[in-house]
């Protein structure tokens, strides 16, 4: 492939949204209340919409017969390059919102930079996605504050979720080969530059929510290189089931 770096770079952005979207989609009919159920699946649909634009572009870059669906549905686990954070299970609503918040802060900062990309397709997708992601961040931030600064039980649950997911935050700012190449060309975002402002924003919300900022200095990594936690396989089994059982099926 001529543009392998660009192709891999697009997947690294899109896979995050695909996997997180699938996680949120699991709440269809299972959210804690009708309203939050709809809110989570709305976010899921926003993310899937973004994912389609990215994969369509990636399929074009690949220049062979593969389609957006092939890229989304037919890769093996090691070929997905999403960060570990987004594949973590829903566990409870505090986890779902903590995961969402920790990703949303990053996602918005990332898209604001991607908007400046020299690649017009990527910049257009970023531009279109920013409004959606701004709302996701508003929604998840709201829930961090509600549960954090809520009752003793809700505060403890949110603290557990933040503590449990904290170890996956550092990976957001790791660079792959494709990352470095694309950032140098002015196409991609230099994620290392987002780290400081990310933690400032996250910490400010945690403090306002009367939550402790975790002190852990040890962080998990691997997702960006295709080395995942045990949770991703199960998620993919569900995501890919239809295409595997009925190859080439369409709606």
């Amino acid at each position, binding site marked *: 492939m001529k543009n392998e770096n660009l192709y891999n770079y697009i997947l690294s952005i899109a896979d995050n949204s695909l996997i997180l979207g699938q996680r949120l989609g699991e709440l269809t009919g299972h959210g804690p209340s*009708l*309203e939050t159920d709809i*809110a989570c699946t709305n976010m899921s649909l926003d993310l899937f919409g973004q994912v389609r634009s990215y994969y369509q572009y990636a399929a074009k870059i690949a220049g062979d017969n593969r389609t957006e669906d092939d890229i989304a549905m037919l890769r093996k686990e090691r070929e997905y390059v999403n960060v570990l954070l987004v594949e973590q299970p829903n566990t409870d609503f505090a986890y779902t919102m903590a995961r969402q918040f920790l990703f949303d802060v990053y996602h918005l900062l990332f898209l604001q930079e991607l908007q400046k990309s020299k690649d017009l397709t990527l910049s257009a997708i970023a531009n279109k996605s920013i409004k959606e992601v701004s*709302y996701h961040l508003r*929604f998840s931030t*709201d829930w961090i504050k*509600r549960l954090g600064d809520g009752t003793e039980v809700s505060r403890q649950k949110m603290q557990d979720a933040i503590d449990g997911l904290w170890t996956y935050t550092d990976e957001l700012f790791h660079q792959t080969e494709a990352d470095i190449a694309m950032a140098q060309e002015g196409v991609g975002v230099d994620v290392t530059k987002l780290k400081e402002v990310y933690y400032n924003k996250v910490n400010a919300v945690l403090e306002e929510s009367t939550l402790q900022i975790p002190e852990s200095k040890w962080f998990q990594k691997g997702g960006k290189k295709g080395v995942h936690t045990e949770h991703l396989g199960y998620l993919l089994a569900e995501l890919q089931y239809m295409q595997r059982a009925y190859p080439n099926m369409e709606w």
Partner: protein
Amino acid sequence: MSDKKNWPLWEVFVRSKNGLEHRHCGSLHAADEDMALENARDVYTRRSEGVSIWVVESKNITASNPENNGEMFEPAHDKVYRHPTFYDLPDEVKHM
């Protein structure tokens, strides 16, 4: 309404575009007004249905009692002269 298990009920009014009035479109549960607005956005306006949302806690709405429908509404029925039914409307005038 004040028990901790159930969030209070809110009525949602959506204005579909500028210049039109807000219309009641349904109700939902939420813990406070901010959550009610966000929930209303997610439940009622995700397909470009609106440009503005009002929410009001249902308990703040005073409603007429159906038992009193007779005295409230019946008297209007036998006064045809209160309705502008004696005019011929041109076809061009719609929504009357």
